[in-house]
């Protein structure tokens, strides 16, 4: 009997380790031989821990599982009260286009053999047979843009590094996924770490870099250990090392762990941190592509950007590019979070409307109350009211509505949310996390908190001041922390002005 019990951090946070132990104990008591595989999560977090049993028809799902539900798995499984049917046939799964996350939740994350059975290493093998410039061209042609949030064309960045002359170049994977409502990087690193290894190796071959770093978070201990194990396995198998898959070309990599500074998700701050310095933002130019880690040409890409490269190299640029809408090509791993009924990761082509994502896929709020606002793109993203739910999920459409898609995290909030409080939180967060290098961010965020407190106290004269301050922060800050904090603040003020009036405060008291 083969049983999958996710080892994903979210599944573990919901009791998956206890369930896995119970499966082993119960099987032993019954004298049943069982193989337990700790797979990644399928992304249906509301069903976690989601246990799967391999049957002749396919993988049958059961969830959300409690320890008490385990014994019945060994009886008439189809009659189990938590039986969900075939996992692949669930509507949530069937509606997705899983390219980057094709293997997450499916395979044993640390089995290189299973990885290869599911098309793993095909992209890297094809890349090895190509000229570096042709790899860069393929990625450019795919239309892939930075999935960390900035949306810069990945191929263009690679070309800059490819064309640069230097004795040493680097691939740095930005896995400092600090935005609230985002967990795609974590899920991929835990559920299919070889994809990231392969993507980084391809990037290395393409630009002539022999060393890669994954900079991730201390808040992600499971992802850290999973990546470290995967790298060791890949090295032992000759996927990494002095001769990648026998190509005669070198590439190796290691994991580095941050230390709880949100701003280190900004690429230049990340590079400083990786060098062992304070995570202070650097002015650009010089671009990291020319003077990055240790002053050398460096590709800095998000986890999902790099993890999308293997499928692009395997299936070809045209295959990937035909998904999506407008200039937003390919798929995006939506992370639907917060006060939501069906929360989790949903990979789909660009172009769904925000309303479809929130109401249809997410099923509305967990509390059952009306959705009031959705913050798209993390703590630096704008809050969207229901009136903007027809906005298609693309880089351009969200920018046109005064927002951004960022790393595609969505925080759903019901009608009990106080938008003035959320605006204040955004400023407070910026004040705590500011690296201190530029004045608009360092001082502006503190003044922003004070001004919002004035407004909250009923002083409407603070509103024009806040607006002006946001304008200064937006145009005067060195990086996205100070520059984008105005998004949540101004969107809250613009779309929910009632929350910023004295009458609102009185009503609340």
């Amino acid at each position, binding site marked *: 009997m083969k049983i999958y019990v996710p080892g994903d951090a979210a599944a573990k*946070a919901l009791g998956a380790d206890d369930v896995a132990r119970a499966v082993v104990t119960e099987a032993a008591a019954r004298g049943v031989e069982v193989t337990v595989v700790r797979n990644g999560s399928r992304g249906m977090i509301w069903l976690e821990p989601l246990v799967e049993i391999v049957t002749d028809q396919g993988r049958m799902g059961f969830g959300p599982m409690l320890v008490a539900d385990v014994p019945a798995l060994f009886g008439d499984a189809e009659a189990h009260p938590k039986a969900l049917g075939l996992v692949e046939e669930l509507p949530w799964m069937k509606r997705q286009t899983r390219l980057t996350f094709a293997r997450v939740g499916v395979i044993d994350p640390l089995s290189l053999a299973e990885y290869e059975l599911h098309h793993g290493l095909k992209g890297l093998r094809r890349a090895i047979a190509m000229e570096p410039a042709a790899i860069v061209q393929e990625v450019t042609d795919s239309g892939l843009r930075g999935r960390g949030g900035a949306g810069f064309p990945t191929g263009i960045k690679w070309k800059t590094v490819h064309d640069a002359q230097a004795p040493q170049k680097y691939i740095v994977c930005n896995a400092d996924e600090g935005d609230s409502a985002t967990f795609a990087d974590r899920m991929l690193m835990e559920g299919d770490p070889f994809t990231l290894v392969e993507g980084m190796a391809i990037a290395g071959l393409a630009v002539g870099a022999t060393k890669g770093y994954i900079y991730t978070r201390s808040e992600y201990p499971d992802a850290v250990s999973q990546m470290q194990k995967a790298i060791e396995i890949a090295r032992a198998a000759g996927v990494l090392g002095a001769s990648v898959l026998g190509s005669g070309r070198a590439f190796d990599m290691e994991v580095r762990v941050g230390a709880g500074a949100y701003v280190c998700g900004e690429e230049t701050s990340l590079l400083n941190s990786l060098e062992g310095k304070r995570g202070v933002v650097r002015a650009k130019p010089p671009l990291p592509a020319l003077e990055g880690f240790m002053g050398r040409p460096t590709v800095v890409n998000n986890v999902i950007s790099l993890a999308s490269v293997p499928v692009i190299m395997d299936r070809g640029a045209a295959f990937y590019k035909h998904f999506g809408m407008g200039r937003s090509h390919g798929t995006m791993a939506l992370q639907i979070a917060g006060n939501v009924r069906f929360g989790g990761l949903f990979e789909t082509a660009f172009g769904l409307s925000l309303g479809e994502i929130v109401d249809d896929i997410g099923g509305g709020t967990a509390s059952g109350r009306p959705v009031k606002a959705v913050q798209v793109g993390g703590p630096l993203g704008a809050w969207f009211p229901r009136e903007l739910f027809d906005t298609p999920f693309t880089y351009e459409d969200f920018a046109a509505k005064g927002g951004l898609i960022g790393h595609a995290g969505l925080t759903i909030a019901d009608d009990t949310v106080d938008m003035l409080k959320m605006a204040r939180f955004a400023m407070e967060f910026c004040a705590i996390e500011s690296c201190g290098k530029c004045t608009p961010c360092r001082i502006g965020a503190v003044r922003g908190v004070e001004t919002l407190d004035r407004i909250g106290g009923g002083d409407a004269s603070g509103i024009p001041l806040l607006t002006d301050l946001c304008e200064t922060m937006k145009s005067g800050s060195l990086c996205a922390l100070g520059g984008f904090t105005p998004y949540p603040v101004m969107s809250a003020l613009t779309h929910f002005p009632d929350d910023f009036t004295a009458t609102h405060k009185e009503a609340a008291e």
Partner: protein
Amino acid sequence: MPLDESAVLSRVNEILAEHNGMEGPLLPILHAIQESFGHVPQAALPVIAQHLTLSRAEVHGVMSFYHDFREQPAGRHVLKLCRAEACQSMGADRMAEHAQRRFGIEWHETTKDGAVTLEPVFCLGLCACAPAAMVDGRLVGRLDEARLDALAEELR
């Protein structure tokens, strides 16, 4: 119990030796020291500085930049509660108040008996099963008052 300074320095020197040849080794070194002692002892800073040919101020500057590094040991257990937006939308503020009341401490403080240190954290990546917490490296999703009380009993 105060740490024996010579024991600290000998362990620090071991850690420094383990990181020889590494590019940008300061964060890994500080992490390793904190893992050994539960905090970064002040006595370690000049030794690190000399080894990496940095000034002591630079090492202090790096250490104090990052939330993770402690100058003082934490309690026997560290309870981290997520304060980010997704968790807030599911009652993280209420959880924080409950924890502060239950333990009688504010953020970054340790209970008088040294059992629990309470820390805020901004995102554990458990945003679809909020509110989330981390107890000594163990993750907890869908936290509620009852779960928090049970944890409090466990951590005494």
